[in-house]
């Protein structure tokens, strides 16, 4: 990585500095890039290449449970010989078993519905916060962030006690005579929706709030003065101006929700199907590493477009802050 060309850190004044200091600065500034760069290359990018490689290998009853492909131990010739052993059996297997296709499809549909629900719940909260008196806004912001700091697992676990057939929600509904028999919510898709909306709500509210807070509300006043009804003013002014927040929030919820494991596993029970759970089971229960790698590769391909969109939205937001 020595060829990373570094735009020089210190501006015009560098020329005046002693040679050794400049050398030191160049080295340090290079280090600032190289160290995290190499770390991420090795621990983030290389692992994906390995996943891809193993997804093309065959299952074996051994430890690790796959036949090695692209073995570098025999040098270059061994490397090329390995190509002959590559096979797409695992991918063929994924297309033949309808279970996988259904798991991908339901995951995307569940994530999409949950994202819309989270937006519907989160928007009024973010809007209310942005219109709150400036003195209490930091406190409100803090209150939204605080649950995010408490464990994800704990927050999902808390809902089990609420949604169970003999749980707190049913006790309340029965005692108020709203229902005559306990509602079955736990271990259904409804419970997954509740879990995702609840867990990911701060991720939706924060970007929404930051774009709603920046908005110039005199625009609304002007629209009102000109006789525009409030609903029309919302759709014509507020919502379009909050669109960057809506996009960022939706991507922050949708992408991780597609691959979610804890929520479908704890709240969805064994009857619900989601790809994160399928991958986990292939790996931990069936010990089929090549197939779970293939599942991961397809999931990644499925998410690559939203991930690139997310990254571009982040880069744009960064440009605007400057």
């Amino acid at each position, binding site marked *: 990585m020595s060829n990373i060309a570094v735009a020089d850190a210190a501006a015009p004044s560098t020329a005046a500095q002693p040679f050794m200091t400049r050398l030191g600065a160049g080295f340090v500034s290079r280090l600032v890039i190289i160290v995290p760069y190499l770390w991420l290359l090795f621990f983030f990018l290389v692992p994906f290449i390995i996943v891809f490689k193993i997804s093309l290998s065959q299952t074996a009853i051994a430890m690790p449970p796959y036949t090695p492909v692209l073995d570098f131990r025999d040098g270059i010739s061994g490397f090329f010989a390995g190509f002959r052993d590559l096979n797409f059996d695992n991918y063929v297997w994924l297309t033949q078993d309808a279970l996988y296709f259904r798991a991908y499809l339901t995951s995307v549909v569940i994530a999409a519905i949950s994202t819309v629900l989270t937006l519907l719940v989160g928007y009024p909260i973010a809007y209310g916060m942005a219109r709150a008196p400036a003195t209490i806004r930091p406190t409100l912001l803090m209150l939204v962030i605080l649950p995010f700091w*408490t464990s994800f697992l704990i927050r999902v676990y808390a809902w089990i006690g609420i949604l169970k057939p003999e749980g707190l929600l049913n006790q309340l509904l029965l005692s108020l005579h709203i229902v005559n028999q306990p509602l079955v919510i736990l271990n259904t898709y409804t419970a997954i929706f509740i879990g995702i909306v609840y867990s990911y709500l701060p991720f939706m509210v924060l970007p929404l709030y930051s774009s709603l807070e920046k908005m110039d509300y005199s625009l609304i006043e002007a629209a009102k003065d000109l006789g525009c009804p409030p609903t029309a003013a919302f759709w014509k002014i507020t919502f379009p101006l909050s669109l960057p927040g809506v996009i960022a929030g939706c991507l922050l919820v949708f992408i991780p929700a597609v691959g979610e494991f804890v929520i479908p596993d704890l709240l969805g029970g064994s009857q619900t199907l989601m790809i994160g759970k399928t991958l986990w089971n292939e790996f931990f229960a069936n010990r089929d590493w090549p197939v779970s790698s293939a599942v991961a590769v397809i999931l990644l391909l499925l998410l690559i477009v939203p991930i690139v969109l997310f990254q571009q939205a982040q880069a744009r937001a960064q440009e605007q802050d400057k």
Partner: protein
Amino acid sequence: MNTTWSRFNITSITLGFAFLYLPIVLLVVFSFNESKLVTVWGGFSTKWYVSLFHNQGLMDAAWVTIRVGLISATVATVLGTMGALALTRYTRFRGRVLFSGMIFAPLVMPDVITGLSLLLLFVAIGMDRGMTTVILAHITFTMCFVAVVVQSRLVSFDRSLEEAAMDLGAPPVKTFFQITLPVILPAIVSGWMLAFTLSLDDLVIASFASGPGATTLPMKIYSQVRLGVTPEINAACTILIAIVTIGVIIASIANKRREVQRQLDERAAQRG
């Protein structure tokens, strides 16, 4: 103030916060329940806390989690701060697009993919799975969160301060430690806290990266939750919530104090 805080806004905020906090409050309340049933109130008791501290497995797991969290958060903070500096200060270097992609992608990457890919890496390089591999995995995914937090502070940072210091002859490294670092320190501290809580919280990545003998608290809680909900888990969760809440409150008070002090200093400087 011409912003009208309508009844609609107040209602939506109240309902929103009730939704966010009610489950956590109920969880805490039922950790003090005398009855073994988690959802039926049987009187106040702290017995589950006592039995919790006698649960050796849970205590060992808690100790592993704390060590993993402290080490991984500290390394991740250093790497993440470097990454943030690289992203904001060096707008042109070869591979910058890939670099920023590798910083942002882990933020949204599903845990199952990150976990699986790291595990396969550890197996491929022949590393024994245990606490070290969990720490390495946690550094990797939390450093990106640190980078984003620190970066947002660096973007709004007034660079003329640094330029002034360097014009006066301070070498860049000294400028960084005497000018830049104090200014971005609050962001670095909150980045560290975020990394620590993410590490404390993680179940999926730790489950993949961990081996025998290195069970973290979330892994332990998860395996017990699968067997059924018990008040003991509620007690463990309550302690975790208490630690995090106290930490966040202390940090925000310290932050506020520093902010007030800074404003006073600035005013004094203007007057002087």
